[in-house]
């Protein structure tokens, strides 16, 4: 120990006397048999090949591989299968055909990537105006009005138009299916084209339904407020129609008296 500080030097000086005495008697050493045993162990360690530790690295790599592969398998099994391009369209068409309109609204198909909507050329939409659901235009117009006026209540179309919309959606789907059936004996290319068209049509119908659903009042209270708004604006016929839709949607909802008066006796109960 080489002291650098003064107090360290003092410590060293103090210790030197003790150290001298200690070293005079510090002669204890390990026995020779212990020396021999330790040196023999040291030689054995050198002479032995290092095979006994070589298993650790391959074993750890193998364990990591097994873990990684099993994780990948587990994750892959749990992932839902990716929908094909035409499968969802067929499902949607089937849903629109078989399910009642409100049910179809309540159980929208799984949201898909936006590229379906974005990739569809706009000219296709304009080229087939007869197949576009009317509700789509209504919903779009209503939303545009709402954006212009800023009135939320007026912008929301009722869920009732969704029913005709769904029906309207179902019709093109049926037509497309019939067309597919007719063209079953035609060339494969044509068949594929027809299938793709049907898928696009169904998708556009479902998107219109989604828009309407999004625009419709989410809760009965909001719906009734909207009807009140119509009454205030003097649109009694429209209010009555919307109230009937409401009653159809919520048959057991307790209506305020002022609104019950609008309904026919059989619907007011």
């Amino acid at each position, binding site marked *: 120990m080489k002291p650098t500080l003064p107090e360290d030097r003092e410590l060293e000086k103090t210790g030197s006397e003790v150290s001298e005495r200690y070293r005079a008697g510090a002669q204890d*050493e390990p026995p020779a048999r212990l020396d021999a045993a330790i040196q023999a162990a040291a030689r054995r360690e050198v002479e032995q090949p290092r095979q006994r530790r070589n298993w650790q690295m391959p074993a750890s790599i193998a364990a990591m591989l097994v873990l990684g592969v099993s994780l990948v398998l587990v994750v892959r099994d749990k992932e839902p299968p990716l929908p094909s391009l035409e499968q969802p369209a067929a499902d949607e068409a089937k849903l629109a055909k078989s399910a009642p309109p409100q049910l179809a609204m309540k159980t929208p198909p799984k949201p898909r990537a936006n590229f379906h909507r974005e990739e569809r050329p706009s000219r296709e939409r304009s080229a087939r105006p007869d197949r576009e659901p009317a509700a789509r235009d209504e919903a779009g117009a209503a939303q545009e009005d709402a954006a212009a006026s800023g009135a939320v209540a007026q912008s929301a179309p009722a869920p009732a138009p969704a029913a005709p919309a769904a029906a309207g959606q179902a019709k093109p789907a049926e037509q497309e299916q019939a067309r597919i059936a007719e063209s079953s004996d035609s060339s494969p290319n044509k068949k594929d084209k027809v299938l793709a068209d049907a898928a696009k049509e169904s998708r556009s119908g479902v998107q219109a339904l989604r828009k309407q659903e999004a625009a419709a009042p989410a809760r009965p209270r909001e719906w009734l407020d909207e009807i009140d708004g119509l009454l205030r604006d003097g649109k009694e016929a429209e209010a009555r129609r919307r109230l009937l839709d409401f009653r159809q949607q919520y048959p057991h909802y307790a209506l305020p008296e002022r609104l019950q008066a609008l309904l026919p006796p059989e619907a007011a109960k």
Partner: protein
Amino acid sequence: MLPARLTLVSAEPVSDEQLMLRYRDGNAVAFDELYGRHRGGVFRYVLRQVGLRSAAEEVFQEIWMNIISSRARYRVEARFATFLYHVAHNCVIDHFRRKTPLHLISLDDDPEEAHQVAGPDRDQPERAVALRQSAAKLLNALALLPPEQREVFLLHEEGGLTLEEIAGVTGTGRETAKSRLRYALARLREGIEHEADIA
């Protein structure tokens, strides 16, 4: 002592670290040289703390087995002595954990043990007796030190470690190590003087 054939013949003294590196690379003779340099210091470091010679031999063997088994992983990051006494410190602690309480040697109670600890006889009987008496007093005082102070003193005396290295081995700060060493030296000197007064 080691047989002469085990010592390395070299013009320049090889450092402990170089010897350990050579041993790591498969040179068993290098280990023998290294062992010869440190066997006495490590043994006394253990014996002064553990107390019983049989227990000290057990711990001593464990220390060197640890050094041997760690040869493949050895890197020169500090002085070899620091590494060695770090291992020794841990083995002594493990020993105390396994076999509490600490058994301190009383040189008066057990003449056989006192003989073992005090060391072999010298060639000159009177001087040997004087040295033994002096060493016995010091060892008595050393045995009465608090364990932390005793360890710091032994690391300083047997390992030749600096205050920084002692702090590193014991897991304390430099000032703590210095304080412990100062107290240890003071008490040992007091112990020697006290024994002399009584005599």
